[in-house]
């Protein structure tokens, strides 16, 4: 089992003829993802990695019955690509690009809400469900294994670090979701946690957060509804206020978005908060019923 994505998901790649699109199409196919088509205007009729290329999402959906799309087009064209996917019936849109203007993200997220579309990202590594052997994203294939731990993260490489440490400790993952490092993204911790709550294959959840905004604080209260144990690790303890730490969203502004506030809120609602990434696996082990 998994959340949001499963082995029946029929995936198209928007921007499949670019370097990134091509490379990750190959990686997704190698992992087992059902990539049924790619989009690249004026390049319809070609094949990339054995996948048929279409000029428009409309053609691709008509020909393949696709229901999910991963977007690799450059940031200035990302809003157009996302709307093209949503208006053509795609139900799950994964937005990989970084540096999409926030006003564009606001429009994408508002339209997704109106249409009932799930948007993951922007500025995300994507989503992977090891138990279903499928992924939509740019994460390395070999660091995951199937198991009961759900992971939701704001950061890519940091989530790799943690997923790999779980895998090495024999703690597999049900689904790993990257929310994205931008200020405005499609998901919140709460929306992802709701999915994990309803997924019988997930028995424990790891939250990987960071400074900036108040997504962690907002989610804290929901942990009591979740009914599954949560381990949280947040990055940015050493970060100074007022500076953007790489991610557009990772900034302590006007006293808001500090690590202390986030950790306090999560602890108050029952999460086990660890201070270093290498402490996550042990904390998770302590929460899983021994076999």
């Amino acid at each position, binding site marked *: 089992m998994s959340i949001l994505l499963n082995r029946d998901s029929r995936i198209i790649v928007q921007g499949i003829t670019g370097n990134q699109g091509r490379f990750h199409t190959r990686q997704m196919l190698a992992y087992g993802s059902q990539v049924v088509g790619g989009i690249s205007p004026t390049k319809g009729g070609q094949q990339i990695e054995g996948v048929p290329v279409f000029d428009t999402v409309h053609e691709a959906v008509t020909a393949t019955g696709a229901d999910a799309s991963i977007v690799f087009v450059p940031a200035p064209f990302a809003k157009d690509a996302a709307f093209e996917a949503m208006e053509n019936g795609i139900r799950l849109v994964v937005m990989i690009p970084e540096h999409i*203007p926030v006003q564009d993200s*606001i429009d994408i997220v508002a339209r997704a809400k109106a249409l009932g579309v799930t948007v993951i990202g922007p500025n995300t590594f994507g989503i992977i469900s090891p138990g279903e052997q499928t992924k939509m994203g740019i994460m390395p294939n070999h660091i995951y294994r199937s198991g009961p731990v759900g992971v939701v993260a704001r950061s890519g*490489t940091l989530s790799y*670090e943690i997923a790999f440490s779980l895998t090495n400790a024999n703690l597999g993952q049900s689904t790993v979701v990257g929310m994205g490092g931008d*200020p405005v993204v499609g998901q919140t911790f709460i929306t992802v946690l709701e999915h994990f709550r309803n997924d019988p294959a997930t028995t424990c959840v790891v939250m990987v957060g*960071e400074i900036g905004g108040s997504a962690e604080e907002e989610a804290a209260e929901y942990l009591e509804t979740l009914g599954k144990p949560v381990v949280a690790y947040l*990055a940015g303890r050493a970060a100074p206020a007022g500076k953007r*730490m790489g991610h557009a969203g990772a900034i302590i502004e006007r006293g808001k978005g500090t690590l202390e506030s986030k950790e306090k809120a999560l602890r108050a609602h029952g999460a086990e908060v660890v201070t270093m*990434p290498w402490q996550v696996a042990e904390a998770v082990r302590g929460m899983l019923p021994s076999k």
Partner: protein
Amino acid sequence: MKQYEYLAKGALKAYGIPIPAGQLVSTPEEGAQAVASLGPVALKAQVLVGGRGKAGGIRFAQTQQEGYDVAKAMIGMDLKGYRVDRLYAETKLAIERELYISVTTDRNAKRPLVMASLAGGVEIEDVADDQIVKAYVDPEVGVLPYFGREVASALGLEGTIFKEFADLVVKLYRIYREKDAELVEINPLAVVDGHLVAADARLNLDDSALYRHPDTTIVDEGSALERKVHEIGLAYVELDGDIAVMANGAGMAMATLDAIQYFGGRPANFLDAGGGASVGPTAEALDVLVSMKPKAILVNIFGGITRCDDVAAAILQVKKTSGIPVPLVVRLVGTNEQEGVALLKAAGIEAYSEMAEAAEQAVRLAKEAL
């Protein structure tokens, strides 16, 4: 990207929002000249720090001589670590009341938020919640005139001020939207002679949208080194410690700083070498770290898209061309790990596989270097 006050005011003016008469001053002579043309003025340091007034960044001049003297005293002064190069001289206002208005992006609601208050003139964070009117904007609808009237009504405004305020909400939202702003704020929004005037203004623009605003004045408030690394295209923040850090990915870079602190060390910088940086940019970034003359350097790589052998090649390139005269600790895991580790080993550099061990070692070496 934050804009200086005079740039923010320029944007307000272009959208028909009243601002005081003003001009830029960068010499004492211009200070005198400002009084000659504007009358008594406030001289305001154009730096991007909060609490500017309290720190001595706003002074007044009644006469041309005072204009000269005050400008001379202020230009070149240090304001909370920032050098003052320019002042903005504005007609001194006889303020009757101070209000507050802003449009910003609410990250949780994922939509624009209009905030307004009768308690202007202080930072909005210091205003009690029950004195702030918050109105969320549906981005698919935008801000129509009724929306402005509703905010004005919720504040309890009346008459001319009601009308002017309602109109201002519409204009401010247009600036937020059309300029790709993260924040546009007027505080205080002054009442002078019964009319609204933007006494101070903040405008923060979205870096990601600069490509569609080619006329924007680029303001990089960073240090010389920060500006240099930004030009390479990497995210970099200067810190006050002595262990230089490079990692791939923003989250990993933050976690690496935290790890150094955890073991009792002090990181000198934040540097995200990118999720898939190749040899060239990685070597450039490493060169910057060496130039900082730290006590130790910690490179922490979890290779996903980034290839460990590329990182190793970059390290060897820097070692060969400019030398690495301080202890270097490398942690390499992930894609092409074995090739990368072997490359380093052949050059006498031991690579760690555990982040904790590497961070602890970097802290130890930095302390030994004291």
